[in-house]
């Protein structure tokens, strides 16, 4: 039963992930008095990319061909660890937060390698930028998870979630607010949203993620885009479930299953709304100012960890 539910959970994550991107696109379009894409558009975009012919540089080595599969499969593995609407995840016994973070880092490493592989200037620029930013984002993410784990006495996501789920909401909000701020900033940076990176343009001065995947087309591009959307969805569901751990399913009736899926999706879309709101209301930061934003995340994470240490002492 647990297995079946976990399987359903992965299917849900993989299927719903593109619609979060649609939600933010639609918000942006509405704010600019445009109509914006329909929900089906994001899926048909993916489908069209899957059917299209690929153009591959003749200088490309095996890394170029392996990268989309590596990226997609590491993201899929990560989605096996993150609980969505259900407290248990399929690989929860095998992996904790550290495995999750380094699965993302593994995919990102291959992404940067493949961008260097074809030898274009944009690829190299994009991967150097991506690596710089992720070397700043990763410690902030790790430290804020350590702060949460110090309180919960476990690094596994299920443990953290059920620990905070048993406490009263106000206390959880007060105790984890700084870590929430840190992880939220990291989420914006990792999913390439506007104060850090602009997902909608291909402008050489600003692009980070787009610069790395310029050489890709067809099926590979579809895999990369989809993996990116799943990653964004996973970060959002981490935020939703770790910091607002209410409404997750305990018993196994069908009504409760439906209810918890509904609660989960509404949490995700509310968080995505906040991200979209920030995207609408802010300009993209200059590249050299982005480390300042991530430094804020780092400071928040450090303070929340120190605070936990002093409380539990």
């Amino acid at each position, binding site marked *: 039963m647990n297995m079946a539910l976990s399987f359903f959970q992965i299917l849900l994550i993989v299927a719903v992930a593109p619609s979060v991107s649609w939600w933010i696109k639609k918000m942006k379009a509405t704010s600019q008095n445009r109509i914006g894409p329909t929900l089906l558009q994001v899926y048909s975009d993916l489908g069209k990319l899957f059917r299209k012919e690929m153009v591959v540089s003749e200088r490309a080595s095996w890394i170029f061909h392996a990268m989309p599969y590596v990226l997609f499969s590491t993201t899929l593995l990560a989605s096996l660890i993150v609980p969505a609407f259900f407290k248990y995840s399929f690989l929860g016994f095998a992996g904790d937060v550290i495995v999750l973070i380094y699965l993302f880092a593994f995919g990102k490493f291959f992404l940067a390698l493949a961008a260097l592989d074809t030898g274009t200037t944009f690829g190299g620029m994009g991967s150097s930028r991506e690596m710089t930013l992720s070397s700043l984002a990763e410690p902030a993410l790790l430290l804020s998870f350590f702060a949460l784990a110090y*309180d919960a006495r476990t690094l596994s996501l299920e443990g953290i979630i059920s620990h905070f789920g048993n*406490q*009263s909401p*106000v*206390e959880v909000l*007060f*105790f984890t*607010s*700084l870590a929430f701020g840190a992880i939220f900033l990291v989420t914006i940076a990792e999913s390439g949203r506007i104060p850090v990176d602009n997902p909608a343009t291909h402008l050489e001065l600003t692009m980070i993620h787009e610069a790395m995947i310029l050489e890709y087309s067809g099926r590979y591009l579809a895999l990369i885009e989809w993996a990116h959307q799943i990653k964004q969805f996973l970060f959002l569901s981490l935020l939703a479930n770790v910091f607002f751990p209410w409404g997750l399913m305990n018993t196994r009736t069908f009504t409760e299953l439906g209810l918890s899926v509904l609660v989960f999706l509404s949490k995700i879309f509310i968080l995505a709304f906040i991200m979209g709101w920030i995207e609408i209301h802010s300009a993209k930061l200059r590249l050299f100012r982005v*480390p*300042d934003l991530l*430094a*804020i995340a*780092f*400071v*928040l994470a*450090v*303070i*929340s960890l*120190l*605070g936990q*240490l*002093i*409380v*539990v*002492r």
Partner: protein
Amino acid sequence: MDHGFIPSLVHFLGMALLVSSFAMIASPQLLSCIRFYAIHSFLLAAITFLVAHESHVEHLMIPAVLTLVLKTVVIPQFFFWLIRRLGVHKEIDSYVNIPFSVFLSALLVFLSFYVTWDLKVLTTVFSKEFVPISIATIFLGMLMMTTRKKAVTQVLGLLLIENGLFLMAVTMTFGMPLLVELGIFFDVLVGVIIMGIFVFKIRGAFEGIDVDELTVLRG
């Protein structure tokens, strides 16, 4: 572990206090620095109020209200007025750049948590987490006084130190006797006004409030 409502609120306020002193260090604009000072003082007033309410020490209410009125409203407004009168340009000049000073202040916060880790002497009457936080606030104020070039920001650093000392006094001993407390508030107010006048004088003599100029002798 088990958190109650009040301990978690206290924790939140203490952490927010630390974050707002970080924000004072990190803010690139003079006006936002002053606003963060106002937020810092507001949180300080909230903590004082909470201590007074929870420990039934009613005479602490008076310092709490005074902090709220004086430090969150009067002194920031005085600074805004001062900046308008001086017409100084709004960026903060510092001897070290802002990311590095944030890094330094993170180190100082670590240091203050480290030195208070198992000091048995420092027992508090209220919540033990305020010892490192108040020491960190004092350190950050010192950092701000030593690294900033403008006289106004140095005064802000001094006020940050004063906030840290006040927090320590409140949480370790329920504050000083009321008369002393009132004297301190009066001192701070008069001190800020005197320093404001002093800043005017510096501007008049050197056509700027950069304290680097003070080292140059003029005949």
